[in-house]
């Protein structure tokens, strides 16, 4: 019996979605388009750092040092300057991100073993980029010093031999794409359902639904299944697009991926329905949906900013952000190929999230329908 009633609500909702072509299109295709755009555009891989050079020495040795910077592939020499005032101007205008200052007598001091001092000035406004630039500059200067002294420098007593697992080329795309999947799913699922009931409230059709002999459970199931299917389709599209275009590997198990994605979507839909029962206008519903899904998923899930670098109080807050668990599971399955047993805590957390959201939403809905 419940099944038939739910089916009726499902058909009604589907028809309503189909009528609003633009919204449907947004829900299904825009996510894949986003992935395309952001997958190409967003990365941390820092290359082509604009470098201004002030060479006060002008000898073969100083030119060799400048060449070492340019040939590293990380720096582009954008300007040769004569004075500190020029460096000031170029850094203010963002024309240069870093400046290399080679002192007079650099070549002579180097040959005499006097350890000349070169200066690298870095625009620190973006701390992340600056840290990376610092690292590049330090290793270039060190190896250039060694090269200019061939034979005289011995191998260092201790050195490091790095090996990188899971993402050996350190492509930031591989890290960001799973995050984008979570982010896009969260927004489409929460926002689309958050509005669906409020819209009926605003247009008054909720009264008709209330009169109809449908129990709360069937109403909720019927209302959310269309959005569940749409979100799942859109998730599949995103994942395949990411594999085709960005070489996202699939090292784990497809079934565990499906389980993780379904749990996450179910929770997001529940959250949307909950907002929908609490808000009176679409404006409020939308703002609430943005505030509870958009920002936490962007900021507190580990999508972009590492959770372990946050203050402890905020780290505690991240435990209630579902995307946090979803991301660990997603990256674990796709990039590391970890077995599902390792991800049990994350999947359990996602299950709790989905059940809690759906239960809260149905309680509120039942109360509202009197």
């Amino acid at each position, binding site marked *: 019996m419940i099944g038939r009633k739910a089916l009726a609500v499902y058909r009604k909702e589907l028809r309503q979605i189909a009528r*609003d072509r*633009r*919204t449907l299109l*947004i829900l299904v295709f825009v996510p894949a388009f986003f992935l395309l755009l952001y997958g*190409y*555009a*967003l990365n941390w891989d*820092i*290359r082509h750092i604009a470098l201004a050079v002030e060479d006060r020495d002008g000898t073969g040795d100083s030119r060799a040092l400048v060449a070492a910077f340019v040939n590293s592939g990380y720096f582009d020499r954008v300007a040769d300057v004569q004075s500190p005032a020029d460096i000031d101007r170029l850094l*203010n205008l963002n024309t240069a*991100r870093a400046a290399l200052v080679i002192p007079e007598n650099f070549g002579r001091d*180097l040959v005499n073993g006097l*350890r*000349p*001092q*070169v*200066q*690298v*000035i*870095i625009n*620190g406004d*973006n*701390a*992340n*980029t*600056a*840290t*990376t630039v610092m*690292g590049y500059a*330090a*290793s270039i*200067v*060190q190896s250039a*010093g060694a090269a200019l002294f061939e034979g005289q420098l011995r191998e260092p007593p*201790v*050195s*490091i031999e*790095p090996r*990188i*697992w*899971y*993402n050996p080329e*350190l492509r*930031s795309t*591989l*890290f960001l794409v799973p995050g984008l999947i979570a982010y896009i799913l969260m927004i489409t699922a929460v926002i689309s359902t958050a*509005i669906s009931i409020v819209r009926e409230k605003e247009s008054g059709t909720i009264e008709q639904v209330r009169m109809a002999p449908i129990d709360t459970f069937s109403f909720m199931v019927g209302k959310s299944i269309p959005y569940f299917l749409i979100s799942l389709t859109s998730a599949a599209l995103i994942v395949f697009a990411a594999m085709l275009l960005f070489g996202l590997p699939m090292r784990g198990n497809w079934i565990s991926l499906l389980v993780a994605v379904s749990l996450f979507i179910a929770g997001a839909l529940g959250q949307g329905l909950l907002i929908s029962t609490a808000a009176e*206008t*679409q*404006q*409020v519903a939308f*703002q*609430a949906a943005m*505030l509870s899904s958009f920002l936490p998923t962007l900021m*507190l899930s580990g999508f972009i*900013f*590492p959770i*372990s670098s*946050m203050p402890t109080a905020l780290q505690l807050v991240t435990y209630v952000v579902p995307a946090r668990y979803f991301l660990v599971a997603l990256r674990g399955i796709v990039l590391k190929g970890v077995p599902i047993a*390792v991800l049990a805590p994350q999947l359990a957390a996602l299950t709790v999230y989905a059940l809690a959201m759906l239960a809260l939403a149905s309680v509120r809905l039942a109360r509202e329908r009197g």
Partner: protein
Amino acid sequence: MRRLRRLVWKEFLELRQDPRLFVLVIIAPIIQLTMLGYAATTDVRDVPVVVADGDRSPASRELIARFDASRNFTVVDTVTSLNDVDAYLQRGTAWVALAIPTGYGAAIHSETPVSLQVVADGTDSNSTTVALGYATSLVNDYAQELVSRRAAATGVRVPGIDLRLRIWFNPQLESRYFMIPGVLALLLLLVTANLAAMGIVREKELGTLEQLNVTPLRRWELIVGKLLPYGVIALIDVLLVTAVAVFWFEVPLRGSFWLLFALSLVYVLCTLGLGLFISTISDTQQQAMMTATFFFLTPMIYLSGFIFPIENMPRVIQYATYLIPLRYFLVIVRGIFLKGLGLAWLWPQAAAMTAWGVIVLGLAVARSRKRTG
């Protein structure tokens, strides 16, 4: 003028009637700023390290202690062989594994070069790059120290080049100083463009826009009256957010506050114009929200340089970013906050932003005229 005042008053009354909306507009930015201020850090600290110590000598313990003492690393566990680190990396309980080979202590003692293996989880490529950089410089510093210790003992000078790094504008490399001024720009866009678009479309949906159209209000009065309340809210948000940034997060405001305020006004003109434009191409609030979020706000946020540097993007997309007003405003707020720049430096951005605002407002007004005729 009196008609205009009435309309503005009506808008404020409507805003007040929906207390939840009012709360969202004033409280939400504060919450968001606090959250963003603390969360939006790309600093990598306390990287969890698992050590596979195959040597277990005083020398290996000295090296481990150096890692643990650094604020960049936390040693979470010590195991005996590299085979045991798998589980740590899979679960993510350690990001980096440091392997000290058997015979390490003897090699250091006999001055034979020795190399350490560092295995890193490359999933988070950004943090890994930074963590590897930390590990390399920690070990390099240690090696340097060993060399100078020996040189001092034998009296030989060590050749090479000394590097002096100087970081301008943000010497402590606090990523917060970069992110928080950006949040100001982000919040203004989120609050004003959305609310303005939905406020107008709602009247369209309810049919009250028709009623306003038949009143003796002139078109410009109608538009100004509808947008002004949101403009006022935006300026209150500017004050609130700047106050929290300066007094709570202690972001230095090195430039002129009044310049910041004046250029924020120009920026709000752009975002309100955008809201108005979105309202003319949408029939329902749902469409307005979706259009605003997906086609305007999200691309603007990601492609503006707020988080991801524009100079890392492919060339074509870099050109596309010139169409985003947030891009210009970000340069302005960061320039005023961190570099203390004045209009002499920032006029190109200010001019581009003004042009953008005028064009979008013009387009929106032209479209709304055609529709309601």
